[in-house]
């Protein structure tokens, strides 16, 4: 360990740590552009120059290791003057098109210029102009705004291991170029957009959709696969418009794949079931919640019940469903979509996983059996309770053999519309809160990011009502209550506490983790 002083604050940090990281521990932000904790140090933007006593020149805080007894001045006149100079250099050719730039409001050049830059410009020459380039995939390159921090180049070279991007040309003619004949279609390429500190790399999908200050944000967990990448869902006027990675060293570091990013579309679907429905005289008719729950329980009573749960349901919902299965003396199954595993080479244990659902591990821990087809779990005259599953690929003949069908979900599949006795509308992941268990057995919380449509209710809330209506003991008022009950009854989750999970999650017991990860 090394002890030093940064801005008058004593800190003790591990040997070899950079001054910039050490400053963070002291609560001092050293402005920077090219430095990113997930990328190799480049030291090129020269924005993080700090004054270190007894050193002849200003030192780049990102590339200078701490030393015992060092005294660092981040905001000394000399350091401030240097940063002011860098900002002025970066702005001489920057188009200052903040009013139309997608990055406005979350641009580090804007932020630091506001904080420490010059109020005016001394640049009297014409600014250079370069056309916008489509990098392929979801990425657009606005060269005029580029400050050549090379974060994108380093990400593609060192993290994605597909060096498509480079710095082309020299001097102020330099720009980010693409390798001849290649596009930015790597499954992890979207991260270059997040990494870009200015508006040079933009998402085509998000382009002109919203201004940063119009967005509401909530921490969530990606449901694209069983990795459980931590994410932030951003909504504008209650409509999800973007999903971005949320740093978590234990799961996804700073990154997220394209499949995960695009999963926000599912949350933004407009064809939502937003009223409880009950089949009356052959037609699904809007009713109030009480009647719908009564009808649903009626349809399930006295029969062998198969519960088909979605592996994208929260642990809380699955726990309540497990109780419901027991109460109805039924069988709980789930099925999970599968795809190709696509690792991110530069980050250990991070991949777009084969299992394309967030909580298959949770479903297994909570007693649900995986089936490949819905039909394989069904017998003649069974009652089927579908929770969250979209019934894709289920044939009419499979449903025709059912004695009754109750659907609890977010959008109504055609087959359900024709066969369901009752439809109970629930919220999707970004409309409720709860926890998922990822493939490594890490339990992670997600929070509500927007309000639900119509009178749709959180899944745990609806399932609590169903459980109570079937005679089960159910007195839950918050997801935390359900979680507490789950922890107290399932050894796998023993020791966990809803609040202490924080927003980065905690692992379940190691032995259970192995079970959860068995299907990886």
């Amino acid at each position: 360990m090394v002890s030093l002083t940064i801005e008058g604050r004593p800190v003790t940090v591990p040997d070899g740590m950079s001054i910039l990281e050490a400053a963070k521990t002291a609560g001092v932000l050293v402005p920077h552009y090219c430095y990113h904790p997930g990328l190799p140090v480049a030291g090129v933007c020269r924005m993080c120059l700090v004054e270190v006593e007894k050193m002849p020149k200003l030192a780049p805080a990102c590339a200078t290791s701490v030393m015992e007894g060092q005294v660092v001045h981040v905001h000394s006149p000399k350091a401030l003057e240097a940063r002011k100079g860098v900002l002025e250099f970066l702005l001489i050719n920057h188009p200052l098109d903040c009013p139309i730039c997608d990055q406005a409001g979350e641009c580090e050049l804007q932020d630091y210029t506001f904080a420490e830059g010059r109020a005016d410009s001394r640049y009297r020459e014409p600014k250079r102009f370069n056309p916008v380039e489509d990098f392929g995939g979801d990425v657009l390159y606005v060269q005029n705004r580029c400050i050549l921090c090379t974060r994108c180049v380093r990400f593609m070279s060192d993290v994605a291991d597909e060096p498509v991007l480079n710095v082309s040309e020299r001097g102020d003619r330099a720009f980010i170029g693409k390798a001849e004949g290649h596009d930015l279609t790597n499954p992890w390429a979207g991260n270059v957009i997040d990494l870009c500190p200015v508006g040079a790399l933009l998402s085509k999908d998000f382009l002109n959709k919203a201004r940063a200050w119009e967005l509401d944000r909530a921490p969530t967990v990606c449901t694209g696969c069983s990795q459980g990448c931590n994410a932030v869902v951003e909504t504008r006027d209650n409509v999800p418009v973007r999903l971005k990675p949320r740093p978590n060293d234990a799961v996804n570091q700073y990154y997220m794949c394209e499949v995960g990013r695009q999963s926000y579309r599912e949350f933004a679907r407009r064809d939502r079931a937003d009223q409880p429905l009950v089949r009356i005289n052959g037609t699904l008719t809007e009713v109030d919640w009480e009647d719908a729950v009564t009808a649903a329980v009626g349809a399930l009573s006295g029969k062998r019940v198969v519960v088909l749960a979605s592996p994208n349901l929260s642990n809380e919902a699955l726990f309540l469903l497990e109780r419901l299965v027991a109460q109805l003396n039924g069988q709980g199954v789930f099925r999970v979509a599968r795809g190709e595993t696509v690792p991110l080479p530069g980050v250990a244990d991070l991949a777009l996983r084969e299992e394309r659902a967030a909580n298959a591990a949770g479903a297994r821990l909570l007693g649900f059996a995986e089936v490949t087809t819905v039909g394989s779990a069904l017998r003649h005259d069974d009652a089927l309770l579908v929770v969250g599953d979209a019934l894709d690929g289920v044939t009419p003949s499979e449903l025709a053999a059912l004695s009754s069908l109750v659907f609890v979900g977010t959008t109504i599949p055609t087959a359900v519309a024709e066969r369901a006795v009752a439809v109970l509308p629930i919220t999707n992941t970004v409309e409720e809160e709860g926890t998922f268990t990822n493939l490594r057995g890490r339990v992670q919380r997600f929070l509500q990011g927007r309000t639900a449509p119509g009178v749709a209710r959180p899944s745990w809330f609806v399932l609590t009502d169903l459980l109570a209506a079937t005679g089960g003991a159910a007195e839950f008022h918050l997801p935390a209550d359900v979680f507490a009950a789950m922890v107290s009854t399932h050894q796998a989750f023993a020791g966990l506490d809803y609040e202490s999970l924080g927003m980065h999650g905690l692992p379940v017991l190691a032995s259970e983790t192995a079970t959860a990860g068995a299907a990886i």
Partner: protein
Amino acid sequence: MGYPHPSHPRETPILSKYFGDAEARTLEGWRARGGYEALQKALFTDPQELQTIVKDSGLRGRGGAGFPTGMKWSFMKPDGKTHYLCCNADESEPGTFKDREIMRWTPHGLVEGVALAAHAIYAQTAYIYIRGEFTEPYARVTAAVEEAYAAGILGANAMGSGKQVDVHVHRGAGAYICGEETALMNSLEGRRGNPRIKPPFPAVAGLFGKPTTINNVETLTTVPYIIKNGAEWYKQFGRPDNPKSIGTKLFSVCGNITRPGNYEVALGFPFKDFLYDLCGGPLPGREIKAVIPGGSSVPILTREEAEGAIMDYEGMVAAGTMLGSGGAIVFDDRQCMVRQIARLTRFYAHESCAQCSQCREGTAWITRIMERIRDGEGTAEDLDTLVSIADGMSGKTICVLSDSCATPVMSGLKKFRHEFEAKIAANPAMVTVPGALRASAA
């Protein structure tokens, strides 16, 4: 076959002794002139001893920085690791063309120095990184390396010593920045020629991550003479009162001077004598106005300052500049310093590797202002802005290219501010119109 000018009696030709001697280019000719005797001796000598001899000789790097060569070599220990030697033959500093002549006329001298140094730093592999535009030097050095391999001087059993010494010649693609030692290593590794942050220094993690020594052509070519004749012999060259600057040095001279070319003199030579006696002084009827003494990146001297300067590391510092690479650029009284400085900044703006913000943007900004002033469109506030930009560029970047661009601007403004002001005031009496030199010469 003669050289552009005969050796001047006041020169001390060691490296340049065979410039113009075509036979010295061949292996046979080089051997006939005593070549490879030093290598033969060195390959049977302990590397540590070679390091000590070079350290004792006082030789300093002739690439520009002047770091003691023996000390640099002493960083390389017999640690069992793979070591590399790189010869920096990417001579690109405006006004500097001495290494080119060494490679053109005495390529075997360089090969000998490279092989010797490789052995001295416990390296089996050496690279000679030649500037892309150096067509003839590349051909000469390549031919010399091939001859040396064929003769068993290089290879698995170099000169019967049982030592492995391999030399590879690598031709750059033509980027000034690849002359910066860490950018050179990047380029050799097949990457973009961008300077690296130091530390780690090359002696710790250099080429391919291995301990590496990088020396200039002139430095390496000097070493065999020191090994052959001893450190004491080498110490005779230089000022008796200045033990820090030892030996002879090749100086390139160009610009408005009667006899431009390469001259080798002992360090400590009076710059005035050099300019007026060896180089013949200004062209007839003209007067020297300014000199950039050490390649274009060092501070400009006025005539008076130049005439009082001593040609060694300390002497040039005392005169307010640096010895640098030893490439002197002479300007006579017809030259517009604004125009000349603008030309230099344009060069640096073109060659900036674009890594550091200050350099990438600053060199271009300075150039635009300089060219505006040159074209009579400057304003008084431009001069303050220039100083401020140059200040913002100096000492804040990974390498010194940024400083190299700022230096002529700073020193030009300090010493020839009246010319800048005259340009802004559009006072034609103070400045020379473009093409005046050619018109006058005609």
